[in-house]
């Protein structure tokens, strides 16, 4: 359907699979598991009989009912994060058949339409694993603090309404404001290079989502009051200039947030900010 129709040919091919997928077929879930931080990862396969409309979460729930591997070895329910099951909370992000996305909106029919097909589930690779498919995304939220992603209101006591806003500005802000801190953009970003040794990770880069949030709050009449501080945060190490403009982020953002637009806008704003600072010295 118009806006939802993907442009990515692979996604279009996946949607075509829906027509041929037969309910009740067996699909192998190949899951990368890990018992905790510092523990080695290992793979386990589970067979699931897939009903119509099944998604990754409903299959993980089915596995939890009776966790036995394809080899007949009794196991434990898989650990993962979930919440809304409507692709609006960002919890359930994982790497499915090699690409990062929400698992609640991932229909099995799209990915594994035939009897015996395999679906691979892995935790995101750029965040430390907590257990199995659950990773620690604290960094995402901490980076929102770095850009002071809030409107500095006086307080919560009544003092009239907010500023008027044109419908165009509202639409721009609304899209930026649908960012659900899922982490897809960070997972896809080449600036987040990870090494085998977690302690050597360079986690300075603030990430596309935070750059975009800085833009969101710099657009708001009251939010603007902190614009200089946000630009300052974006101009240092790990700021907007660290972005190599690979544009991977915008391709994987499930909310279709125009991240490269935000990065370009904030890049320009940081340059202005620096020039202004230079002349004001």
């Amino acid at each position, binding site marked *: 359907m118009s806006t939802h129709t993907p442009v990515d040919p692979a996604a279009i091919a996946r949607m075509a699979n829906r027509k041929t997928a037969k309910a009740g077929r067996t699909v192998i879930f190949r899951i990368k598991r890990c018992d905790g931080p510092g523990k080695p990862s290992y793979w386990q396969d589970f067979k699931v009989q897939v009903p119509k409309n099944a998604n990754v979460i409903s299959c993980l729930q089915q596995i939890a009912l009776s966790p036995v591997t394809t080899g007949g070895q009794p196991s434990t329910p898989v650990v993962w994060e979930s919440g809304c099951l409507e692709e609006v*909370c960002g919890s359930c992000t994982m790497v499915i058949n090699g690409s990062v996305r929400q698992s609640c909106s991932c229909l099995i029919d799209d990915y594994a339409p035939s009897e015996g097909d395999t679906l691979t589930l892995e935790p995101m690779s750029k965040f430390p694993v907590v257990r199995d498919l659950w990773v620690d995304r604290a960094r995402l939220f901490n980076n929102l603090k770095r850009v002071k992603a*809030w409107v500095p209101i006086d307080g919560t006591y009544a003092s009239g309404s907010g500023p008027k806003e044109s419908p165009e500005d509202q639409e721009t802000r609304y899209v930026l404001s*649908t960012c659900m801190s899922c982490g897809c953009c960070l997972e896809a970003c080449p600036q987040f290079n990870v090494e085998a040794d977690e302690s050597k990770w360079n986690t300075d880069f603030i990430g596309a989502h935070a750059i975009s949030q800085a833009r969101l709050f710099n657009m708001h009449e009251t939010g603007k009051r902190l614009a200089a501080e946000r630009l300052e945060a974006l101009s240092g190490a790990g700021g907007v200039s660290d972005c190599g403009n690979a544009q991977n982020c915008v391709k994987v953002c499930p909310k279709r947030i125009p991240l490269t637009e935000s990065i370009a806008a904030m890049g320009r704003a940081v340059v202005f900010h620096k020039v202004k600072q230079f002349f004001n010295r």
Partner: protein
Amino acid sequence: MASGSTDKRVIVIGGGLAGLAATVRIAEAGIPVDLFSLVPVKRSHSVCAQGGINACNEVSRQQGYSEYEHFDETIYGGDFLADQHPVLEMANWAPRIIDLLDRMGVPFNRTAEGNRDLRLFGGSLFKRTHFAGATTGQQLIYALDEQVRRYESEGLVRKYEFWEFLWPVLTDGESAKRCAGIVAQDMRTMQIRSFRSDAVIMATGGCGLVFGKSTNSVMCTGAAAARCFKAGVFYGNPEMIQVHPTAIPGADKLRLMSESARGEGGRVWVPAIKNTDGSWGPHPRSGDDPKTIPTSERYYFLEEKYPAYGNIVPRDIATREIFDICVNHGMGVAKGNQVYLDLTHRDPEYLTRKLEGILEIYEKFVGDDPRFTPMRIFPGVHYSMGGLYTVFTKGRYEPANPLAKHKSGSRPPLGSEIGLGMQPGAMNNMMTNIEGIYAFGEVNFAYHGANRLGANALLSCIFDGLFCGVSVTNYIRDGLPGKKPASGLPGSVFDEFVNQEEAKQAKLLSTVKSGASAETNPYAIGKELGDEMTAACTVVREAGRLQQCIANIESLKGRFARLNLSDSAAWTNQSLSYTRAVGDMLSLAEAVAKGSLARRESRGAHYRSDFQQRNDAEFMKTTLTKYDPASNSVSVEFVSIDADLIAPAVRNYGKKDDSSPKAAAKPALSGV
């Protein structure tokens, strides 16, 4: 181990709209807050709300609407079961809340001139619903989350995300027990410890998972409320559970399908065979591709039973009829709990123009394009009007006699000043029967009576946080004269409760056995509970079936006592957490079933086929349930309500809608 801080702190459990609003309000007063949540607060269930938030506004005011009418609609919509003074205060506050959210930067939809846009919603003739795109709840919670992050940066808020509330710490107060903190568990390290605080705000949301699948998020088990209940907090109106007529059944959850699909001409049918006597019977190929079912084998049951209004009968009727076809007659599509909602006879381009956002959700999760394939839908448990029982201090408005129902356009009897409904800052506002435990948001039983109006829930959550947050502040500052603040209590007070929780956990862990049969598998017990509650305690209720349900809950309790856990991990053990929740949900389920049985009338969302009339003389009362630890069972009584402001009237706007199918066709019906 108890935390040893000496200052007075407040604990907020839950970071949905209610918990976040409370946190901001209390932190702003300079009191430090410890905020607990199962998930990062930004991911709380409140993100799911799509429709909007109600408030009187300048446009509707100039058309004759008022805060008073919003109050009146809410009481009437709730079928006269809500305590009335708090509802009055909430309605009066609503415009202030919208203004505040606006100042926080919520991207409310705008008119061409730049004012906040409004939409029509169920239960009102006036446009009083504010909205931000199709994700109002998400936008509101983000705005509050951002303000909380600001206080977190300043050190006033400490977040405990991925921490699970296990039990309230109770100690001897002046005359009765009072709350001095909580026991909680880190869901990653599995550490169990206590936290001290003189006030604990429960803002833990609804309990949809008691019914297995619902429109709620996976965290909405109701376990936190159940734990307070088992610790002695009363639970009010548990039987008041709202069911939404058109949800999309999924293997994992029921997703909301807006009622505007029916408004735009959607036809509801099931495959069926017409018997010679004209009645309909099950279809042998009812699960086949609907396009292969000839017209003569399609049973358009709403159109047939309600020729005048057809598919746009009011919500509760649609819900009951769909339920009846599937559950009582076994005629659901593929013999399951689902019927077709069919738009395929409409022009696809028209549908795209009118319903795009809504149809997109269906396509995303079901994989079928509803413009060309009939949708499968079924009623879904949606919202709990009931919750922890709370009290309040009445405000200044005390009419000599309750007034008659307000007529649109007539002069409201009073203005909208603060303090008419509830006394601002009174320490007991929305406090439970246990001193120091408050309940805000969906977990609070107040405001919505027997039925919640669309777009009133977000309002009640934020209102609780802001208005009653001040009550908590005052309680913390002045409410403890002569009592020892929690920070000064001996550690043993807390250790007792930590030990209790550790013992419970040890007991569960001792049952670990892989490959346990369904009989003792906690996931199976949880699923069976959900199926049973959905079958007996949702749309249509009746004494015999309810008694059977109560007996079945008893037997599930027995199985729970013998269960086998499937994961022994000492690190991030989600099975343990889920299993513990199932045990607590059983008690909440018992309260719902026993409340349903005791309320021998029909009111709001509660429909008894054996008592179809509302009975004000006996039941215009709050259902108060109490838990008895000795017998591990629930008792029910009825207590009087505050109905000082509006006299009960027959709730018949269903009829008015009936007589005007056009009204029902408007998006006004799409309340969520």
